[in-house]
């Protein structure tokens, strides 16, 4: 029953620009005419340094910020407000400390005024899938950072979103927890097969997780490289990290950053 083989959502972005108006008339072009088509059910990572517009891209896709020009469509629907098919995971877990784990996961259901009782079993199931069975009645303050981010992921998945947006979700975690979360995210995605847009500044996790890596650079925010990652799945931590192709992909991305002066070779 749990094996929900849902289709991921298709994303179609065309000529998308975002200009931030500043007080001194020198407007910042955060995104410059981005064209991007994302296949349903694919895992796309966006990697780039701070200020390259990757978070702006996510915010536009989430419907939180209006585009300056251009358009975004999720499964054909134009996005101007948060789309019901999207779930978002932010860098910090953003759990409400006065709610139990279960009530945090059910928050989107409450907000959409759906039958909370119906989704309770689904929430418990999600918790079990991320290794937190029996933690439903705990409060966020009783959980570690990694556990909290798992709960945040469950909350984003409760409505089985066709499009999962993740904004540097593991950025605040320690290295060991991060490694475990990357592995868990992969198995979760292999089960759900929804469309994932994963924003990160970690080249290694982008290549490890994604089917496709978009490399962005700032001023103006543009996609410099659209790289298809052809590594067998499920990817295993040590095996993939020893893979020659894996290293070739990482080198190719690093080369872009070096050429742009974002990474300086010594």
């Amino acid at each position, binding site marked *: 029953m749990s094996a929900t083989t849902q289709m991921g959502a298709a994303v179609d972005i065309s000529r998308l620009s975002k200009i931030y108006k500043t007080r001194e008339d020198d407007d910042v072009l955060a995104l410059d005419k981005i064209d991007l088509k994302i296949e349903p059910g694919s895992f796309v990572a966006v990697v780039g340094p701070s200020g390259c517009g990757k978070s702006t891209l996510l*915010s536009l896709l989430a419907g*939180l910020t209006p585009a300056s020009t251009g358009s975004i469509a999720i499964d054909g629907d134009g996005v101007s407000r948060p789309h019901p098919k999207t779930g978002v995971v932010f860098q910090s877990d*953003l759990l409400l400390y*006065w709610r139990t784990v279960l009530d945090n996961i059910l928050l989107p259901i409450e*907000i*959409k005024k759906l039958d909370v009782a119906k989704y309770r079993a689904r929430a418990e199931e999600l918790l079990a899938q991320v290794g937190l069975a029996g933690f439903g009645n705990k*409060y966020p303050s009783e959980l570690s950072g990694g556990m909290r981010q798992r709960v945040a992921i469950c909350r984003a998945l409760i409505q089985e979103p066709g499009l999962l947006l993740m904004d540097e979700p593991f950025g605040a975690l320690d290295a060991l927890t991060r490694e475990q979360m990357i592995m868990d995210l992969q198995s979760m995605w292999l089960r759900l097969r929804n469309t994932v847009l994963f924003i990160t500044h970690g080249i290694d996790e982008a290549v490890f997780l994604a089917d496709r890596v978009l490399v962005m650079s700032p001023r103006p925010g543009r996609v410099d490289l659209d790289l298809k990652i052809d590594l067998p799945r499920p990817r295993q931590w040590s095996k993939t990290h020893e893979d020659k192709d894996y290293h070739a992909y990482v080198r190719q991305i690093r080369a872009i950053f070096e050429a742009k002066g974002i990474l300086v070779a010594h």
Partner: protein
Amino acid sequence: MASTDVIGAAQAQKKQGKGMSRKKSRGPWLERYSALILAVVLLGAWQVLVPLSGLSEFVLPTPLAIATRIVNEIPLLATHAYVTLFEVVAGFAMGVMIGIPLALAIFYSRAFERAIYPILVALQTVPKVALAPLLVLYLGYGWAPKITLAFLISFFPIVISTVVGLQSLDKNLVNLVRSMGASEWQTFFKVRLPAALPNIFGGFKVAVSLAVIGAVIGEYVAAERGLGYLQLQANSLFDTTLNFATVVTISGLGVMLYFIIDTIEARVTYKRDAAK
């Protein structure tokens, strides 16, 4: 089944945890009851030192004499306490009913905030106590000036703490619920208000203690009933023991109201660090 195992383990852990905390708290019992012990020691010293110092009970009654007097005068103290309690609660309730909407207006409207904040701060610098004679002049000798004074004095902390509570919210939490499609109405009730509650209750606690002061000051100026009035009566009769008994009753009233708010707070909010 696996899930019951987990729950069982969690319960076992809980029990263990309880046992541990009991063991821990058994040692430093001095720490737990230190406030009570100090209070008893101080009262004891007072009790013993009054006769030793040669001070007459007429000037400084002993704690036991005050306690006895309170017990004997319960009907009298209660009659006046009811009056003061009514004034305090009414003034505080007005402070909440006017302070919270005002705080919301300040929070949601930049223009309103700019307009009202300087006036609020200016009003706050006026010593409310100095307004008491004027209030009596305008509102007479009844409960109206006392309630007004209790309101004026308790209103400011309620407004400020509510505004601060609402403004200190993590902006990302608003983005989170907006990404779920929440309206501003939902954002307010699901996130803004619950997150501001600890601040708001902090303001309530300060406000209710101040409201007691406001009401009693109002009674000092002109009254025919109330604990402030009773204290003035005791004063004019040189009944120092009754005077002290009234002071104890007034502070008892404040403590009681404080704990009522504290209890309500514990029921409606979850403290961030309660589990630690």
